């Protein structure tokens, strides 16, 4: 009897903007978090109006980009990945959860290792994403601070 079966899917959807997904924004956000940690560390314990002002700005950008990173990953995870892909890549859910935790940890402090771990998890997320598209990836170090590795598609 149908009553015991799962309900059918009814689409309340949009065909237009959907389909444009790319983990690159999340990766750039993670790089930004690390860069801000570096800038804050380089400021040392400098007191005075200008250093205080600068640290406030770095902290704000770090906060925003950690949140942006979470947002971008959630959108791809929730809107792009389908159930069969989640089954095919069993590490995906753990990776997403790690990203959420590490991004929050990166907000709370200036521990660079948390930022690096965040970037690594976002890179793993990107690798899975590109695999689902059948696209090979490679790791490169972009020519700007914080000079850390990101996964990019070979297109």
């Amino acid at each position: 009897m149908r009553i015991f079966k799962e309900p059918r899917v009814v689409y309340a959807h949009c065909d237009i903007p959907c389909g444009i997904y790319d983990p690159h924004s999340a990766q750039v956000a993670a790089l930004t978090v690390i860069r801000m940690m570096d800038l804050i560390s380089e400021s040392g314990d400098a007191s005075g109006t200008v250093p205080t002002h600068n640290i406030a700005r770095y902290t704000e950008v770090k906060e925003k980009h950690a949140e942006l990173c979470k947002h971008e990953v959630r959108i791809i995870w929730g809107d792009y990945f389908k159930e069969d892909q989640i089954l095919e890549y069993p590490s995906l859910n753990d990776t997403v959860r790690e990203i959420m935790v590490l991004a929050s940890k990166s907000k709370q402090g200036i521990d660079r290792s948390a930022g690096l771990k965040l970037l690594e998890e976002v890179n793993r997320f990107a690798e899975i994403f590109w695999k689902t598209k059948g696209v090979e990836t490679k790791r490169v170090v972009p020519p700007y601070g914080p000079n850390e590795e990101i996964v990019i598609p070979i297109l």
Partner: protein
Amino acid sequence: MRFVVSGKSMEPKFYNGDKLFVSPLFFKLREPRAGDAVVVKDPRGGRFVLKRIGSIEGDRYFVRGDNLEWSTDSREFGGVSRDAIVGKVIFRYSRKISKLIK
């Protein structure tokens, strides 16, 4: 008939993942009207879409999402015929708690 919503074109009334009870019999009692939330057979393919009736012109029913920016509807696929309307949404019987506290 029971349906589960996929997509956000009907937010905030119906969210992705909401489960709905839809009656095909309702429209045997009265004709569909503007404002009714309905399940329609997508004229471009077999799937079901959840939309609201915006206007009725002759025998064509023009449907649209509540969320116009995130909706593919009669603006794109044109009006639908009476027999493409599967039923009226009677009530929602399930929504994840997480949707309520975001």
